[in-house]
């Protein structure tokens, strides 16, 4: 009797969370995918230790490879929560990456080296300046949207073209050389694990979680995205909130650029970051952010990034026929969202 009761207790708890907490069902979707993934790693009871090490390494790979997009997705989810969109993230990444590399370049054109600044101070200054540049570019998006009264889609489509194009134009034919020390930012090892990007991602996500829950700005993003008119009538400075959301996204993109440059030591201006806008939007939406604004969470977005990351990882591990890989991605994407709590329609 008691047993049955306890069982019912769990079932009720589960159903209650399932229907009322979107994040819960997103989490379940992720768990199901992780089970699939674990199984595809060929669980082997005899050599549990080495199997587990592989499992851990696989996860560190996943997290490290997605730290950059993960940061961008967080910014994107704020933008979408405010009922906007930012297509320029990939191009901002390239612009910031190029500036960063020109700053720390050890070649003849390196900016800081020509000013006589080298070593750790140079790296420090370059990082700060890159963050400032990203913030500035994001802020520019925000200004065009709020002061110019142009739809976010158009503004960021335009700057997406502009930022990358100008970067390519100025960087054509020049390959900056990044100093070895700089690579430590991402490649520093803790034990035998290269987990720095993961740590940055989680730290920043923690800060943003706090910002979204516990600051005026964080809550006003939701107010503005949910009902701009009501927010304005309640005395919220709608334009300021919107502008800041884009600026912060620019800042997060800078972090991603720093991680990316310090990880690979170089950047391909034509291609780096291309398609990140779609990946970031997809992660946010899979994580429960509503494209019409007002709804979304930091944790949901992180889960969304992980669902997409595990999906890519899974397909590589399973060795799906290359030309069908994207088809499977499509199926998994729909499956993962179907598994989640249904949107209330009408």
């Amino acid at each position, binding site marked *: 009797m008691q047993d049955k009761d306890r069982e019912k207790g769990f079932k009720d708890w589960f159903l209650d969370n399932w229907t009322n907490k979107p994040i819960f069902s997103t989490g379940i979707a992720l768990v199901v995918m992780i089970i699939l993934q674990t199984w595809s790693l060929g669980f082997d009871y005899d050599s549990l230790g080495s199997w587990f090490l592989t499992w851990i*390494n696989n996860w560190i790979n996943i997290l490290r*490879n997605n730290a950059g997009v993960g940061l961008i997705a967080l910014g994107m989810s704020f933008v979408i929560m405010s009922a906007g969109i930012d297509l320029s993230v990939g191009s901002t990444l390239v612009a910031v990456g190029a500036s960063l590399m020109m700053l720390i370049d050890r070649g003849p054109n390196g900016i800081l080296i020509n000013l006589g600044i080298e070593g750790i101070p140079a790296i420090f200054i370059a990082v700060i300046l890159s963050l400032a540049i990203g913030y500035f570019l994001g802020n520019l998006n925000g200004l065009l949207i709020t002061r110019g009264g142009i739809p976010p889609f158009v503004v960021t489509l335009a700057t997406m073209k502009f930022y990358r194009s100008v970067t390519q134009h100025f960087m*054509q034919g020049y390959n900056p050389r990044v100093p070895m020390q700089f690579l430590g930012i991402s490649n520093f090892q803790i034990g035998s694990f*290269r987990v720095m990007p993961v740590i940055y991602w989680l730290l920043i996500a923690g800060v943003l979680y706090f910002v979204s829950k516990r600051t005026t700005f964080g809550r006003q993003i939701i107010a503005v995205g949910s009902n701009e008119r009501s927010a304005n009538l309640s005395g919220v400075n709608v334009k300021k909130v919107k502008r800041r959301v884009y600026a912060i996204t620019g800042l997060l993109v800078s972090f991603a650029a720093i991680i990316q440059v310090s990880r690979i030591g170089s950047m391909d201006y034509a291609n*780096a970051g291309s398609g990140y806008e779609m990946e970031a939007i997809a992660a946010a939406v899979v994580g429960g952010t509503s494209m019409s604004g007002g709804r979304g969470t930091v944790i949901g977005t992180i889960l969304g990034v992980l669902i997409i990351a595990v999906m890519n990882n899974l397909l590589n*591990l399973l060795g799906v*026929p290359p*030309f069908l890989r994207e088809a499977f991605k499509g199926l998994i994407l729909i499956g993962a969202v179907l598994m989640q709590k249904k949107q209330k329609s009408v």
Partner: protein
Amino acid sequence: GSVSAQDKYKIGVLAPAVTHGWVAAVAYHAEARCEELSDQIEYRIQTSSNAAEMTSQLDDLKTWGAEAIVAFPQWTGMEVPIRMAIEDGIEVVNFDIKIDVDGVYRVAGDNYDMGVEGAHYITDKIGKEGTVVILEVPTAGSVSELRKAGFLDTLEEIGADFDLHTYATKFTREAGLSDMSDILIRHDQIDAVYSMDDETSIGVVKAIEEAGREDIKVVTGGGGMQEYFEMMPEYQNIWLESALYSPAMVKDAVDMALDILKGKDVPQEKIIPTTIVDRTNYEKFLDPDSPY
């Protein structure tokens, strides 16, 4: 149509949108060469991302009055629009992906041959047995398909008995890095990686390094990127190879277009054979001024 006889020739270049490093380098070289020749020619360079867009740019070049066109698609299927251009009396020089129309001049490396050379290189280094990972790029269309076909056909011809695993990736170092790190998890033993592009290969090498793996003996590449060349001597345990398909070849295509307009006698086809670069000969190809 051209209105009055002008003293400069009008040459148009149809390039793909710069979606990755090698293509960007081609666009760079094409523009640089046109600029050098600017006392003799007027030029327009257009970039596009698919056949339909390239076709409309072809129309715009006709409006502008182009007499010759250097067409450099990254996709198949430009035959009908190019045939129409030739019917309108425009000289067409084709670079890279083949446009199969009578009367088209052609300057190119050989994508199929890059695969052939890759197969020879790998069997040369690891013998005819072992595990080989092929990284193909479905989104790149025929470039990838030709290189892969050359590679597989040659393996069969040689009679190599590899354990082959094919994965999809992209021509970028980020994709190379992230996909290769998954592949390394899945396979405990890999002897060689057939990658088709230097950008991908840079990511692949980075993934191998991060995983601390020592079983991989060969990583190929394609294109001819300075950054990749410089990595070659740093890895004494892995043979880093690149099948040189120099983006600078596009200069020959521009020159050919000018020669045709000047009425010079030019060969219908100029195929530049694939050159293999690895740590034994990379120094010959280092060029501090190269953009790529």
